[in-house]
């Protein structure tokens, strides 16, 4: 919090070329988020980017792949794709399971098992710290920071974990790290708002509106002109988190009781919540259809062994990548050197290269060794 102005200055050094390289780095580092086949992950990421091109061209304003439909002008709603792929897809896949599973005795966890044990905490603490630092860095950059922070942290934890096989089956690091990163990214998003007066994410934009109404204009002079407000917000973040903890602890057993609901009731309820939840996002029935289409796609992907996560990543990062790419080339009059002549951009591109080449070299070395022996 003391370095807010400084950090905001650092965020400013990200122009279009830097964003482009950062997005490339993001793709390379995150596309294999679930640890399956790299080729399959990349196929899904590219599919996501393709879906992301639907809508109005961000640079010229022409409609692309909308087939004359006004609903598609704004692109495919990210939330609809996410709920469809994971929520509906999961429900559809569960329906196929044998009926015995539905009548299976539900697991009733004991109270003691619900709270993290000391060894759980010990495993999680590293993940929490790493997630917090990572999320903070990501939050300073405009864009869908919470999504990127969550993914990156999960990737990081899985890469360095000693219990790789547990990931996807409830490894505590896989939950603690991304959640910390998510929280931290949200808090970090306040820095550009307070120091520059520019909201990088929807929640900060709403706060900006609230501030203006009270005659406080966030910007370079705000901390000096309205110190009582600035420190008030900082304090409220601490108090808010503490109260959240107090409220949540007693409710843990109640939340856990959701596990007791038999699956045959749970599945239609999930379906209902997906549909109503989707409607409330934009009050749009069209989005529900999109969600259902992606639900079927999610089911098919599950059947053929493809992951939905890289598709989602492509959908989120793709449009940003495109805009940054085209803005950069407009600034440089079409010269690609803009991406390597700027240090931050170059660093991200080199990082991406290392990310790609490292596994290749590693397997090459292994192959050689095996061959010689």
């Amino acid at each position: 919090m003391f370095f807010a102005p400084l950090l905001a200055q650092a965020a400013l050094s990200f122009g279009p070329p830097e964003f482009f390289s950062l997005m490339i780095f993001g793709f390379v580092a995150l596309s294999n988020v679930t640890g399956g086949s790299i080729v399959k992950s990349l196929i899904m990421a590219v599919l996501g980017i393709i879906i992301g091109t639907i809508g109005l061209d961000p640079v010229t304003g022409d409609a692309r792949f909308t087939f004359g439909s006004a609903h598609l002008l704004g692109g495919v709603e990210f939330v609809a794709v996410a709920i469809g792929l994971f929520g509906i897809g999961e429900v559809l896949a569960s329906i196929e399971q044998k009926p015995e599973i539905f009548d299976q005795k539900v697991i009733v966890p004991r109270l003691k098992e619900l709270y993290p044990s000391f060894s759980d905490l010990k495993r999680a603490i590293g993940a929490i710290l790493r997630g917090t630092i990572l999320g903070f860095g990501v939050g300073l950059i405009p864009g869908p920071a919470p999504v990127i922070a969550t993914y990156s942290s999960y990737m990081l934890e899985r890469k360095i974990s000693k219990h790789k096989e547990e990931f996807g089956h409830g490894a505590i690091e896989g939950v603690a790290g991304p959640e910390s990163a998510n929280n931290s990214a949200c808090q970090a998003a306040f820095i550009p708002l307070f120091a520059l007066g520019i909201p990088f994410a929807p929640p900060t934009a709403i706060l900006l509106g609230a501030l203006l109404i009270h005659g406080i204009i966030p910007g370079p002079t705000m901390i000096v002109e309205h110190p009582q407000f600035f420190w008030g917000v900082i304090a409220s973040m601490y108090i808010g988190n503490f109260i959240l903890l107090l409220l949540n602890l007693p409710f843990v057993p109640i939340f856990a009781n959701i596990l007791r609901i038999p699956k045959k009731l749970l599945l239609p309820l999930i379906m209902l919540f997906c549909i109503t939840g989707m409607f409330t996002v934009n009050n749009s029935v069209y989005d529900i259809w999109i969600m259902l289409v992606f639900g079927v796609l999610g089911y098919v992907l599950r059947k053929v062994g493809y992951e939905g996560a890289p598709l989602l990543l492509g959908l989120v990062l793709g449009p940003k990548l495109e805009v940054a790419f085209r803005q950069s080339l407009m600034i440089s009059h079409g010269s690609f050197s803009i991406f390597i002549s700027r240090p931050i951009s170059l660093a991200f591109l080199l990082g991406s290269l290392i990310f790609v080449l490292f596994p290749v070299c590693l397997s090459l070395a292994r192959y050689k060794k095996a061959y010689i022996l």
Partner: protein
Amino acid sequence: MLRKHLFLVFFFVFSVLSLVNANSQEFPTKEVQIIVPYAPGGATDLIFRALAASAEKYLGKPVIIVNRPGGGGAIGFTEGAKAKPDGHTLTSVITPVTILPHQVSTAFTYKDFEPIINVVSDPSMFLVRSDCQWKTLKEFIDYARKNPGMITVGNSGAGGGVHLVALAFEKTVGAKFNHIPFSGGGPSITALLGGHIHAVSVSPPEGISHVQAGKLKIMALFAEKRLEMFPDVPTVKEQGIDFAMGMWRGLAAPKGTPPEIIKKLHDAFKKAMDDPAFRKSAKDMAINLAYLGPLDFGKLMAHDHEYYGKLVREMKK
């Protein structure tokens, strides 16, 4: 067993019915949405967020801002024009609503909207970094004439109002800029602050706080008279360039909204405009309030539709 299932069916039917029912009561029956076709943090967004907060008192229901950025505003305008004409979904219509239809094939023109009220009318301006190489407007223009396409000028979206202002200005002074589109005024100012572009074409309140803080300065002010907040910044007219262009920002409902609902909305937003809280934030943001009722606002939109149509056709030649 059967009873359980029946309960679920009832639950579902009830929830559907309650949705349908909500529409038949007196206006406004639920929150009123204002579609802002630009990213959060831009001028339109800031102004209507402030207005929405004041309007809640007079409408008796929450007023919510929904950002639908992209395509220089076309996405939001299209959605706004196609919204249900029941007064619950309004659109912040600003100058580009009369420009865009001439530039790209859009699914809307100003005729697809019922004017409610005009709120703001602001001059446009060019901002540059305080430490830039040009000390005066003359130096800036001379450089632009000698190095065509070398000065990068950000705007809030391709074909948007400030983009057109920049195009019209370069034509007037015989220069050529390199126009870089961003999705909203906020991102373009961030890029200018970071030194990634040379200038931005904006209109207040965008960038005002950075001008006050001394990070940015007004290079060219395209107004008839000087800004109240910066009385020592001359207009370009004073410097011998006959050029003034601005942006208006108002509220409209989809075509076909009943007149009594338009009147209700107009009265509520008129009161919100006169609300001391809104007056104060308007002053803080350095925006120029300019009230017009539904009739006059409609005339303004019709006039500008013609004017920009001519301008765009000339430019395309």
